[in-house]
């Protein structure tokens, strides 16, 4: 970490940073440091709620160019100062927390849209762009990124790339790792590099995908080229209420295995249908709510919609019609605003994972059983948000309405639930996470997930970041 702020050495280093990026871009006031000490991870939120002092960065640095990022990283290497990249700070895994102090490298001033290539349908932008602002700029040019996560208003492009984010329409348009064409990256030692301009090639391993998902541990992504898409002529939704999650899952899996191309399928288990769908959409019914949508040319949308509805009808669900589907789409972000989102004093977490169709229900039941049997004070709910040709993503949650007040006691309880639930997922063919990332929250489980292969990741980390300055303490890489 940096020397104490009351030591002249702090001023020596701050002067060097200021020379590199400008006085206005090096801040250490209490307002900024507080904002950077808490992200969207429940743990620091709880810590703040219990009036415990957060661990702030020593300085917040806001470079405006990749060259300035490179200068900052070179200075950090010189003095071995931790550097934690920060985009929107809306990650739920603690990945952006400066847990060892040092520099919080805020990328939001890297916010220029460089080019919209209307021939190739790509957009090139700096990674500090707020995703909603980037989407609006893309729409103004007549296209869409088709990346519509709940955090679209909060997060930066770089944040999504850093933790392999996804959006509501991922089932057709892919996750961010499917959308990215190429990257500009500042390496931990301050070299600016570019990955290959196209994502499909036979020119060696895919360097772009080495950095995507690296959560700021291998460098700082400063520019990205993404695919963009025409605005579809039509987009339609339809909703059903199945008697239970199993029959709904059968319908969803058949839609995917027949290779229809829905933009989205979302399937809520019975408890979440009762708890959340009722609260947000005011649909107060027993069963499992499933909504799907298609977009594109209207006649093709209608054809796919008919075929998907016919698949669902085999399970004899209640047909809620198109309006219930449209209502869900119109309210897709409402779930994440207060008071609809879970919030303190509740203890809650999103136990998201992904598995094949052969495994995903086993994973669901293993996680649900381990939570409910070991933590009777917790409620377990879940939905399946992002679907693939081979499987689906489970967005499970646990909620404890009245957790212990003592911050250490509740932190231990919280971590115990995660440890047991995620390991239950891994034991049944799941993984640590599907689109929120690893961060601080789940780093300790990475060696269990990867086994001997984790050593390969660690050696890559050591080779690229020999001084270990980049986001220490995250992703299981230690310090």
């Amino acid at each position, binding site marked *: 970490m940096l020397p104490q702020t009351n030591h002249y050495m702090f001023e020596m280093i701050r002067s060097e940073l200021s020379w590199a990026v400008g006085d206005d871009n090096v801040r250490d006031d209490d307002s900024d440091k507080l904002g950077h000490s808490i992200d969207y991870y429940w743990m620091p939120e709880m810590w703040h709620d219990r009036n415990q002092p957060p661990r702030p960065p020593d300085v917040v640095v806001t470079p405006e160019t990749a060259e300035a990022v490179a200068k900052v990283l070179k200075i950090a290497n010189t003095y071995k100062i931790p550097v934690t990249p920060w985009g929107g700070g809306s990650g739920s895994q603690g990945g952006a927390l400066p847990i060892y102090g040092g520099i919080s490298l*805020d990328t939001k001033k890297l916010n220029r849209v460089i080019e919209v290539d209307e021939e190739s349908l790509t957009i090139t932008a700096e990674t500090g762009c707020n995703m909603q602002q980037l989407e609006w700029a893309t729409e103004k040019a007549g296209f869409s990124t088709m990346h519509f996560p709940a955090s679209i208003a909060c997060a930066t492009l770089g944040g999504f790339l850093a933790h392999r984010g996804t959006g509501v329409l991922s089932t057709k348009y892919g996750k961010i790792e499917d959308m990215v064409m190429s990257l500009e990256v500042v390496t931990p030692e301050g070299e600016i590099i570019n990955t290959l301009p196209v994502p499909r090639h036979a020119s060696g391993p895919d360097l772009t995908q080495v950095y995507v998902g690296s959560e700021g541990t291998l460098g700082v992504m400063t520019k990205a080229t993404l695919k963009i898409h025409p605005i579809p002529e039509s987009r339609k939704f339809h909703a059903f209420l199945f008697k239970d999650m199993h029959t709904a899952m059968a319908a969803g899996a058949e839609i995917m295995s027949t290779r229809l191309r829905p933009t989205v399928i979302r399937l809520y288990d019975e408890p979440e249908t009762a708890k959340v769908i009722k609260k947000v959409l005011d649909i107060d019914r027993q069963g499992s709510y499933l909504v799907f949508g298609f977009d594109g040319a209207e006649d093709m949308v209608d054809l796919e919609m008919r075929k998907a509805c016919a698949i669902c009808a085999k399970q004899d669900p209640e047909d809620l019609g198109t309006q219930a589907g449209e209502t869900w789409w119109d309210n897709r972000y409402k779930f994440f605003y207060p008071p609809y989102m879970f*919030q*303190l004093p509740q203890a809650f977490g999103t136990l998201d994972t992904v598995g094949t169709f052969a495994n995903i229900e086993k994973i669901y039941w293993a996680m649900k059983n381990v939570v409910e049997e070991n933590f009777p004070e917790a409620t377990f709910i879940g939905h399946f948000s992002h679907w693939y040709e081979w499987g689906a993503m489970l967005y499970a949650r646990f909620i404890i309405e009245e957790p212990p007040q003592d911050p250490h006691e509740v932190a231990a309880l919280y971590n115990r639930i995660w440890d047991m639930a995620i390991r239950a997922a891994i034991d049944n063919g799941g993984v640590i996470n599907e689109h929120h990332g690893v961060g601080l929250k789940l780093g300790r489980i990475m060696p269990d997930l990867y086994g001997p292969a984790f050593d390969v990741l660690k050696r890559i980390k050591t080779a690229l970041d020999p001084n270990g300055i980049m986001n220490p303490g995250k992703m299981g890489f230690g310090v």
Partner: protein
Amino acid sequence: MHIHDHLDTIDACRFCFMCRHLDTTANVTFREADIPRGRALILDRVRMNPEQLSNSDYINTMYDCALSAACRQHCVSSYDEAGLVLAARSDIVEAGLTPCDVKTLADSLVAEFATEMTGNAGDILYIETTAYQAGQPEIAAAFGKAMAAAGVAFRTLRVNDTGKALAVLGFADQAAEAARQTWDAITASGCSTVVASCPATFDAIKGDSTGLGAALDGLNIQHTSTYLLGLVTSGQLTAKANRAEAIYIDSDFLRNYNGITDEPRELLGACGYALKPFGTNPEESYACGEGAVVFARLRPRLVELMRERFVELMDSPDDLIITASPYTRHVLSQSDGKPVRVISIEEAVANRL
């Protein structure tokens, strides 16, 4: 503490990022402290540790807020983050922690307070608020031209601050006194219809009068855009029908505080203006700090950044900008380089007579 009246907002906003993209200050500073979540986090710490109210960094952050209320407008639950910031400012002032620059500005508003009535005919009282309008006599002149064309007599009350500026700075007592004197002048005029060009003044008279101790029951209070639209639709005012493209910039006080979005556009449409959208979205405030009333005097550097952002978002430097806010007109016309072609909505109407 006044912030205790807003605990629901602190609880809701302290960990919520959902309106980050719309904070007028944060969109030029990019600071985490400058979004509603950042401010609510600070005030949550103050709630738990009242002595931290004296933290000068926290205090400055509260006064950096542009109070556009775009975030409240966006929030699906309409949590009143702007109200929370105003409460914090009141707490700061009452605790004797007012920063020097804020104190100096408030003192000057109090010292400059004056009311002046001109004209002596008609049932319409037009209020010109000099501190908010930064001079700009063209606006009152354009309103006068429209009224003359419609054959409607009116009186003018010129006042420095209706109390709104002092109120947003956190000086409740001084604001109430300025408001009382303003209301006395309004009442003394005997007019039953009050019209204001400045949306902050309109909001003060329409929205704050009761809170500041005045009783203005029975008065018909309108912004000029609504009033002039009435003249046009009643046939009293006829505009030339030649078409011209223009961009209308919403006022924070009209849109985000009073829900008035259609009337200005209808008025401009009736005057032959074909309106184009501005920027990339209809939610963001482009009013350059209007919600903080005297922000250009309090935070000139931030307002300069807001003006630069506005210019960057313009499709063409030749676009004609029409604003219902004299404050915004003033800021946009301060260009160092090629000036923005900006006129008030009153001028837009007068130009078509």
